[in-house]
């Protein structure tokens, strides 16, 4: 539910007991829920709830490139479209995509591309559509995470998954996974993604100020949190195959039922 008074930032981002406003410790993630195969029409899809963020990602491809002149004769192309629903933020967002959405689309696309074997798919395109239904800070990281999951769900060969998170500084303390209000009222924000096949950084942005020592600490903090997120991604994928296995193991009953209906 939205606040009645607009843009009122709290004076303190920590409560008296030392916890953050939503009751978390400095190195605690918000609750995260992931599920694959949520959109039946898509080649691959995933849904993510990360705190109050609610995001769908769907993959279509490899398919014919439209418009045709974008096709490359020597490799496939990856196109990512990040969009926010008009009601996903406090003030209604205009329905047409803005500059911010185009920038994030590009950032996510660049982050994911190293994972794919695009050279195996000349003349085709992979399209990843990301739709943010509800936003509460860290949507570019959440979108990257869920997009990687949707690609994996589509069965597209990948070197590994990629996971992303924002770390930052609020009221002088280093924290992981900034919420919307912490992002706006905090001092520093550093979204970061790691591709797991080489454990290297594939997305990195920063706004704020930090010294060298702080930067090193941020990177270490992020890596620990990302391991947790990677595990949640893997679990979501595994659940799909466990479910498939269970369904194929009991085909008899189901057929009988169908006949009755």
């Amino acid at each position, binding site marked *: *539910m*939205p606040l*009645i*008074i607009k843009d009122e930032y709290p004076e303190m981002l920590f409560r008296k007991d030392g916890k953050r406003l939503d009751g978390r410790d400095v190195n605690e993630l918000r609750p995260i829920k992931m599920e694959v195969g949520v*959109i*039946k*029409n*898509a*080649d691959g*899809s995933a849904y993510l709830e990360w705190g*109050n963020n*609610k995001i*769908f*990602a*769907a993959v*279509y491809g490899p*398919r014919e490139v*439209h418009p045709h002149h974008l096709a490359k004769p020597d490799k496939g192309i990856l196109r990512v*479209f990040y*969009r926010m*629903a*008009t*009601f*996903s*933020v*406090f*003030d*209604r967002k205009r*329905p*047409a995509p803005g500059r911010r959405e185009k920038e994030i689309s590009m950032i996510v696309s660049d982050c994911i591309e190293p994972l794919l074997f695009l050279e195996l798919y000349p003349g085709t395109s992979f*399209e990843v*559509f990301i*739709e943010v*239904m*509800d*936003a*509460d800070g860290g949507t570019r990281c959440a979108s990257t995470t869920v997009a990687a999951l949707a690609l994996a769900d589509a069965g597209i060969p990948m070197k590994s998954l990629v996971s992303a998170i924002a770390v930052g500084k609020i009221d002088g303390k280093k924290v992981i996974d900034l919420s919307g209000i912490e992002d706006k009222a905090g001092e520093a924000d550093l979204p970061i993604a790691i591709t797991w096949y080489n454990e290297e950084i594939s997305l990195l942005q920063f706004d704020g100020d930090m010294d060298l020592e702080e930067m090193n600490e941020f990177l270490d903090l992020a890596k620990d949190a990302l391991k947790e997120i990677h595990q949640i991604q893997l679990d979501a994928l595994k659940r799909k195959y466990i479910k498939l296995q269970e369904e194929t193991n009991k085909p008899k009953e189901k057929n009988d039922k169908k006949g009755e*209906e």
Partner: protein
Amino acid sequence: MMDVKRIVSKIERDYIISNLKKGERIDGRGLWEYREFQIESDTIASAEGSADVSLGDTRIITGLKYEVGEPFPDLPDEGVCTVMAELLPIASPLFERGPPDEQSIELARVVDRGIRHADCVQTKKLCIKEKEAVYILFVDMYVINYAGNLIDAGGVSALTTLISSHIPEGIWNEEKHETEWTGKYLTGKTIVNELPFVLTYGKIEDIILLDPSLPEELVCDGKISISVTEDKITSIQKSGAATFTIDEIKTLGNKSLELGKKLRKGLNLLQYLSEIK
């Protein structure tokens, strides 16, 4: 992945039609039967009301936002409620990204007209100060998965969103000449009066069926959507290249009132009223 295409093969078409002639549908439903509705309300924290509605495999998420603006000069004491629909490219390979096309505009328009002409939204209650400030409500529908009959799913989705709404209550401050917030909320209880339902029928040759699924929709010559309240027809939209006889329209009008009653009772949308005070 579901098999989604623009054209249905001759074999599939003949199969659908020969079954319909026996009074059977490929998913086992009767001609006047809906697929199952699944409704969740108030799922979006950033919106002032929302609904996540599935009709079979068709899924639409709708959210409500508001602004305070000036009323139209010819309706100085009435708020405004607008409906927008977007066919997201995630929902089907048939949907392309980009500005709204005919299909999404039709969806928004038919749902909007169903609501507008049925005394559903109490626009006079959405007035803060005559000629100065009224609420402008935006009901925005996003199609998440497309498996036929977006209009009926959209209608229920928009209605549930309005019922679940909770909008900060404003009063006019004469001295400052601006709106002030009381800390209370206007909810669906105040805003919504009538509950109009829109029912869509497909026509294939001379067979008429309720709630066409995607393969049926692709085979249909045309469709007709009829919005009904408890005892009145409030809006009709015929679309596609089918023609309907006058008798058929009369039957459908009758059928819509009857099926609308059943739907009203079955879905019991008033259970989704927001409890915020």
